[in-house]
């Protein structure tokens, strides 16, 4: 088990408390098979592809174009389990010989927790199908036919 690569810039990731009132699409990073990664607001997603608002332009990506598509739904605080694990491991110094058992337990449980927390908010194509990304788009129901960026 390892941490999933997350290319979404940290400043573009919402705090969990912001998500319920955020009415735009979440920030998405599309890494095409050719060319540089592009990023912007996820406007629409379906099995046929994703539409991303990049600046004032809507850009459509079909599945064959996408090597990887990533959305991070909310910001995690991995520092919490990291600090917790370090403090817990250090506390085993008070366990005497028991630390031969308790310190590895802290490390195993702590590191597993850090990885799970890191990975939880990340949704990534091709591990997740593109239609699942509709939940995080501005228009989960599909983009209105007459929609043009302002």
């Amino acid at each position, binding site marked *: 088990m390892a941490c999933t690569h997350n290319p979404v810039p940290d400043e573009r990731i919402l705090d969990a408390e912001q*998500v319920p009132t955020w009415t735009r699409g979440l920030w998405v990073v599309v890494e095409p098979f050719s060319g540089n990664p592009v990023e912007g607001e996820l406007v629409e997603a379906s099995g046929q592809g994703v539409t991303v608002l990049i600046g004032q332009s809507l850009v459509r990506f079909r599945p064959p174009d996408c090597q990887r598509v990533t959305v991070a739904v*909310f910001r995690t605080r991995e520092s*919490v*389990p990291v600090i917790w694990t370090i403090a817990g491991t250090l*506390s085993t110094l008070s366990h005497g*010989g028991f630390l031969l058992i308790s310190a590895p337990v*802290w490390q195993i449980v702590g590191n597993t927790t850090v990885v799970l927390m890191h990975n939880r908010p990340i949704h990534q194509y091709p591990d997740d199908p593109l239609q699942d990304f509709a939940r995080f788009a501005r228009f989960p*129901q599909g983009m209105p036919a007459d929609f043009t960026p302002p």
Partner: protein
Amino acid sequence: MRWVTLVGLVACTAHVDRSLTLPINAAGLDKRSAFLKAHMKDGSVYLLRRWTVNSPQRLVAGIGELQDAHRRVVAKGPFEVRLDDVALFETNVVETSAELAPLAVVTGASIAMTVFCLTNTKSCFGSCPTFYLGGELRAEGFSESVAPSLEATDVDAIGPHPGGTVIVRMTNEAYETHVVKRVALLAAPRPAGGRVLAESGEDHLWRSTRLAPPVACRAAEGDCLASMGDGRERFSPADGEDLAAREEIHLTFAPQAGPLGLAVSTRQTMLSTYLFYQGLAWMGRDAGRRLADLERGGRDVAGPASTLRDLLGGIEVHVRRNGEWARAGEARETGPLAVDTHLVRLPALPSNEPIEVRLRLTKGLWRIGDVTLATLDGAVEPIRAVPRIVPVRLGRRFGGERAPQTAFPLTTLPGDAYDLEFRLPDGDYELFLESRGYYLEWLREEWLAEESPAKAALLFLAPRLALRMLAPAFKAHEAEMEAAFWRSRYAE
């Protein structure tokens, strides 16, 4: 405080579950979501709080705002939205992250362990020089020699062996400094089908070809025959009001020809270790001065320590002779680690009558394994072998600039290990390990919290009363003390 801070951090570690629901399923919308988004067919969205679903009228109602497809606010206020105009509903439930639950569980267990070790330091970290044969703990050396002036020789039975090369591993598994002046192996030829036994408190080894277990055993708990021998250890809990309280075990053996001896395989519980460490804790910073005084011949520690030792006592062996109990001797070995077998010679008894033996011992102080009646066939002179010393390792934490040693006296620190390689002629032997030296207990910082000149004075001036006073504290942790002790050996 650290843990309180972490608990606070948990509350800050949230995650979000986002769900989309078709209008036809509006009745099943997740009510835990504080806000409801109604995505309209034209791309606009209602963001509603205090929202409700009116299924019969096919409406959702709430307070909030309407945003157009560009997410500009076009209206605010209470709204009623027809389900038929809605494309999708979106709910977002913010919850505390469940990923942290395992860490919380480990934290609870870890705090419990810390509290246990800080409040029961007398059951953590303790040991004394330990000797292994074939990876199995067989002996602990000179456990009572806690100062240079108490240097002593200890002989421990370590079992049968076919001779040849015998490698005994000596380790330091405690926060102690061990000074080992010498170690020798005593190899006594074993009679066919018999044993060689070391007489308690004496240098004599005895050959025996007839060893018989008891036919009856009676103690306070009733029949105790099934609770000792064949790997089982008979043990009774300490008295809740007086740690020096005694108990009796009555054993009956079938008639057996003499001369006779009683072989008792035993080790101590954690009680003696607890009392030793408690004494050091109460002396606190004054412990060094008092032990130095002991080295100068002072009696202010030696006297009370001897009194305490006598109050706890060994395993007294009595035999019934002419209708009366007569004291035959005592089996005594300090230390909770390794089982040792002691022979107590019995006075002449009629060979055609059952033999009744009474053991008198302090409750909760002894674990008794095999007890056998032995016919003694004569004394035996052992072969004495001295070892080649092979350093195995120096403890990493306390290794420092020290170099491994290859000659006695060996001074060892926690984590050190040496192999003692003996060579014996091939044969069938009963082996005994003779070790001489002393060790210095390291005063633990956490013990200083219990420093109490008044209680130390009580221990020295009225040890009998101190044993009564300490009984409740010992009883509170007696059950888990031994398991904790074994798990807490110093190891690298």
